C-alpha cells in the first residue's frame, strides 16, 4: 500500500516538473518572438529614417532641377535671345550698308525694308528685356540700350534717306561720322547685358553645384547609415535567433528529462516488484497479490501518462487533424459510456443518462468527442467522493442554436481559486493532490481544446460539497459545419 502511495506521489512530482518545463518553453518562445519583433521594428525604423533622408535628397534634387530650369529660362534663354538680338541689330546695319552698294532703286527699297524689319525685332526685344528686368542694373542697362538703339535708328533713317535720294557720298559720310559710333554704343550695351546674363548663369550654376554636393553628401550619409544599422539589426536578429534556438534546445532537453524521470518512476516500481517475485522474496499469496497489483497499477499509470502526453501533444499542434462527419448525439454519448464502463464498474458508480429526443445531428470527430466525454466522466468518478453517481444529459439550446451535453457529479466541488486554472495543462488542484486523487492535470485541458477545435466550447458550474457540472456546447450540423469551415477550412477540405 505504501509502495502504491509512493508511486502516486512520484507521479505527481513528475507532472509538476513537466508543467515547469512547459512554462519555461512557452516563455522562451515568447521571448524569442518578442526579440525578433523588436529588431524587426528597429530595422523598419532604420528604413523609415532612410526614406526620410531620401525625401530630403529628392527635395534637393527637385530644387536643383527648378534652379536649373530657372537658370535656363532666365540666363541661357536670355543669352540666346540676346544672341538673336545682336544678329538682328547687325542685320539692320548690314541691310543699310547693302543699300549703298547698288543704284537700283528697287533693291535699295528692298534693303531698306529688310533693315526696318530687323530693327523692329531689336526694338521688341529691348522692350521685352525691360519688362522682365528684375534688378536696377538690368533696368539701367535696358534703358541705355533703348536710348542708344533709338539714336542709331535715327541715323540709320537719315542714311537710308540719303541713299534713296541719290546722295551716297553724304550717306557714307553720315554713317561713318555718326552711324558707326552710335552702333558701337549699341553693341557695347548688348555685350554688357550678355555679361550680366553670364554672371547670373555662373551664380546659379554655383548654387546648383552646391545643391548637388549637399544632395550627394546626404545620400552618402544615408546609405552609410542604412548599411551600418542594417548590419547591426541583422546581426542582432541572427544572434537572438541563435540564443533562442539554444535556449529552446536546452528546455526541450529538460522537458525530455522530466518526462523520462516521470516514466522511470513507475518503471522502477514495476522492476522492483518483478525482481522481488523472481528472487523468491515474495512469499504467500497475499504478498504476491500486492506485488502483482503494484505492477498492474504502475503499468496502468504509465500507460495513462503516455496516452495523456501524446494526446496533449496532438491537441497542441496548430492543425490537429480530425475526421469530421455528422454525428448523432446519442451515438457520441453511448461511445463514451462504453469506453468508461470498466471504470464505472470498478469504482462502483451509477450513471443516469437523459437525452432529449429528436436532437439535431452535430458535426465532429467521434473519437475526439468520445475522448472528451470520457475525460469528463473519469473526472466525475474521481472527484465524486463517497457519492458515486454520474449524470449525463443532452439537450437543445434553441436560443444559442447549440447542443449541450453535460456531465454532472455530486462530489467535492471545485474551489473558486481553482476555477481559473482547471483548464490549464498539467494543473492539479492542491486539494486533489492532498487527497491523493490520481491524475496528470491534462484531461480538462485536452477536453477543452478538442471541443474548441470543433467549433464548440466547454464550461463548468460548481458548488463546494454539492458537485460540478461540465457542459460541452456544440453547434448544430449546419451551424457546426459553417463554423468549422470559418475556423478550420483546411481540415475540412482535407477530408475525403
Amino acid at each position, binding site marked *: 500500500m505504501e509502495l502504491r502511495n509512493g508511486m502516486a506521489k512520484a507521479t505527481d512530482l513528475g507532472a509538476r516538473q513537466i508543467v515547469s518545463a512547459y512554462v519555461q518553453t512557452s516563455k522562451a518562445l515568447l521571448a524569442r518572438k518578442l526579440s525578433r519583433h523588436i529588431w524587426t521594428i528597429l530595422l523598419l525604423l532604420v528604413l523609415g529614417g532612410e526614406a526620410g533622408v531620401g525625401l530630403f535628397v529628392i527635395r534637393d534634387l527637385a530644387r536643383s532641377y527648378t534652379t536649373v530650369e530657372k537658370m535656363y529660362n532666365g540666363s541661357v534663354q536670355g543669352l540666346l535671345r540676346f544672341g538673336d538680338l545682336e544678329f538682328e541689330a547687325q542685320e539692320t546695319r548690314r541691310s543699310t550698308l547693302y543699300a549703298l552698294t547698288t543704284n537700283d*532703286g528697287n533693291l*535699295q*527699297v528692298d534693303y531698306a525694308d529688310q533693315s526696318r524689319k530687323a530693327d523692329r525685332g531689336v526694338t521688341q526685344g529691348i522692350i521685352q528685356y525691360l519688362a522682365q528686368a528684375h534688378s536696377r542694373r538690368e533696368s539701367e542697362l535696358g534703358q541705355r540700350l533703348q536710348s542708344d538703339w533709338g539714336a542709331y535708328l535715327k541715323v540709320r533713317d537719315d542714311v537710308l534717306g540719303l541713299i534713296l*535720294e*541719290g546722295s551716297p557720298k553724304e550717306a557714307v559720310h553720315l554713317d561713318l561720322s555718326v552711324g558707326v559710333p552710335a552702333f558701337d554704343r549699341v553693341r557695347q550695351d548688348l555685350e554688357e547685358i550678355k555679361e550680366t546674363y553670364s554672371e547670373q548663369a555662373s551664380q546659379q550654376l554655383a548654387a546648383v553645384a552646391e545643391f548637388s554636393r549637399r544632395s550627394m553628401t546626404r545620400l552618402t550619409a544615408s546609405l552609410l547609415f542604412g548599411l551600418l544599422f542594417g548590419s547591426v539589426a541583422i546581426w542582432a536578429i541572427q544572434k537572438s535567433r541563435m540564443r533562442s534556438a539554444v535556449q529552446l534546445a536546452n528546455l526541450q532537453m529538460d522537458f525530455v528529462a522530466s518526462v523520462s524521470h516521470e516514466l522511470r518512476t513507475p518503471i522502477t516500481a514495476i522492476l522492483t516488484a518483478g525482481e522481488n517475485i523472481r528472487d523468491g522474496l515474495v512469499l504467500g499469496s497475499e504478498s504476491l497479490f500486492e506485488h502483482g497489483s503494484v505492477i498492474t497499477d504502475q503499468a496502468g499509470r504509465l500507460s495513462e501518462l503516455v496516452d495523456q502526453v501524446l494526446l496533449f501533444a496532438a491537441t497542441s499542434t496548430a492543425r490537429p487533424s480530425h475526421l469530421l462527419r455528422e454525428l448523432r448525439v446519442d451515438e457520441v454519448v453511448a461511445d463514451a459510456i462504453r469506453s468508461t464502463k470498466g471504470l464505472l464498474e470498478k469504482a462502483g458508480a451509477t450513471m443516469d443518462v437523459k437525452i432529449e429526443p429528436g436532437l439535431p445531428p452535430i458535426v465532429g470527430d467521434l473519437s475526439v468527442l468520445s475522448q472528451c466525454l470520457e475525460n469528463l466522466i473519469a473526472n466525475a468518478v474521481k472527484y465524486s467522493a463517497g457519492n458515486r453517481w454520474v449524470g449525463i444529459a443532452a439537450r437543445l439550446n434553441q436560443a444559442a442554436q447549440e447542443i449541450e451535453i453535460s456531465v454532472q457529479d455530486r462530489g467535492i466541488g471545485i474551489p473558486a481559486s481553482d476555477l481559473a486554472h482547471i483548464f490549464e495543462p498539467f494543473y492539479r488542484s492542491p486539494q486533489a493532490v492532498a487527497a491523493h486523487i490520481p491524475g496528470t492535470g491534462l484531461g480538462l485541458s485536452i477536453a477543452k481544446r478538442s471541443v474548441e477545435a470543433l467549433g464548440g466550447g466547454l464550461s463548468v458550474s460548481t458548488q463546494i460539497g454539492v458537485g460540478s457540472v461540465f457542459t460541452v456546447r456544440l453547434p448544430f450540423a449546419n451551424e457546426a459545419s459553417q463554423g468549422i469551415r470559418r475556423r478550420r477550412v483546411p481540415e475540412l477540405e482535407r477530408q475525403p
Partner: protein
Amino acid sequence: MRAKARILNFVAVAMMLGLMQNQTAQAAPPSSQTRSKPSQSLAIVVNRSNPIDNLSYRELRKIFLGERNHWPNGHRIAVAMLDYGQPERETVLRLIYRLDESGYQDRLLRGMFLGDVFVAPKTLASPLILRKFVFNAPGAIGYLRASDVDDSVKVIRIDGMLPDNKDYRLQIDERSAE
C-alpha cells in the same frame, strides 16, 4: 577737248539709263494682288516728314522736270517713277511732263548731259515699292493710284485739291496704257 568730254559724258549717261531700263524691265510686273481696285485719280505722295501739304500744278511740273532740286526743309528732292508701260506713268508723262515716253527719255538724257538734272528719277517696279521708297526717303515724291495710298505716305494737294475732288486734274486714262 571740252566737246569730246561732253560727248563721252552723254554716252555714259545713255549707257546708265539703258542699264536702268534693262533692270526695271527684268523686274516682275506688278501683280494683281498688290493692286487694289483701280481708281481714276492719281495721288501725288511725299514722305510723311515733308512739311509740304500743297503744291501748285506748276510747281509740281518743275519738280518732276528737275527744275527744282530741294524742298524747303533742305532735303534733296528724289522723284520716283513707276516702270515703263504702267498707266500711272503714262498719265504722269502725259499730264505733268506733257511728253511721250521717247520724249521723256530724250529730255532726261539731255538734262543730265547738260548738267541741268543732278539726279535722274528713280524707276521702280511697282506701286508697292514706290510707296516704300517714299516712306524711306524724306525727300521723295512720287505718284500712286488713290486706292494704293496708305498711311505710310502723305498725299499732297495739287492746286488745293485732293484726288477725291471732282475737279482734280490728275486722272488716269486707262486706254493710254493699253
